[in-house]
């Protein structure tokens, strides 16, 4: 097949058909269609893990309880300040913000656009993702500006014995 397609159809002695690249005519119509089918196959295979993980979550295997994790002592976080921590796993970045004397909010701070870290802008009172200027509402985690469309996953916290603990990652309301 390669040879059949690699031939220059007729011999022309002119100045316009003088480019002679190797395998110039290799990608013919059939070959291109084959590529398209292959792409469909790649899409099919690569969507399998997503389906698998989704099925796992549906069956409740993803609902495991994580041990409560101490984030920070109340003493060391003044009102309006934030502190970074990891929850529930070692690689899940999260941020705790103290809004008032008793009110704490915590979110997983991977931006819901492309997973850049989201920072707390104390002066402006908003959460900002510096990559594409996505902004999030600090009270709810809902996106207010920029590309992200999905709220930040909220982490339930509780205050106990002078320290703040992360309890669990809240599910989105259905």
């Amino acid at each position, binding site marked *: 097949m390669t040879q059949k397609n690699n031939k220059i159809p007729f011999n022309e002695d002119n100045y316009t058909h003088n480019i002679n690249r190797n395998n110039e005519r290799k990608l013919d119509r059939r070959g291109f269609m084959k590529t398209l*089918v292959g792409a469909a196959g790649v*899409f099919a295979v690569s969507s399998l893990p*997503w389906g698998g993980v989704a099925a796992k979550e549906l069956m409740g295997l993803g609902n495991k309880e994580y041990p409560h994790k101490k984030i920070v002592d109340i003493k060391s976080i003044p009102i309006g300040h934030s502190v970074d921590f990891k929850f529930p796993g070692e690689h899940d970045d999260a941020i705790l913000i103290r809004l008032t004397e008793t009110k704490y909010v915590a979110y997983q701070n991977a931006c819901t656009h492309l997973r850049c870290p989201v920072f707390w802008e104390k002066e402006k009172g908003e959460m900002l993702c510096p990559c594409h200027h996505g902004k999030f509402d600090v009270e709810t985690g809902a996106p207010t500006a920029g590309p992200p469309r999905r709220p930040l996953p909220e982490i339930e916290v509780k205050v106990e014995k002078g320290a703040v603990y992360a309890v669990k990652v809240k599910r989105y309301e259905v």
Partner: protein
Amino acid sequence: MKCNFHFAALLVILMLNIVFTQKMVHQYYFENYVTAIIYCLLNLVLFPIAFVIYKQDQKKA
């Protein structure tokens, strides 16, 4: 003139693949797992369809 219908159909399938994948990933992160699985299955179904279209085109040639 070859049948361009098959060709166009394959292009449409590729387009749908992209759309379904995008939807699947988003629905997964939105925690709508049933919807995510539906899109995953749609993506899986598209491959045999593409293959059948390709075979039909081969037969015609």
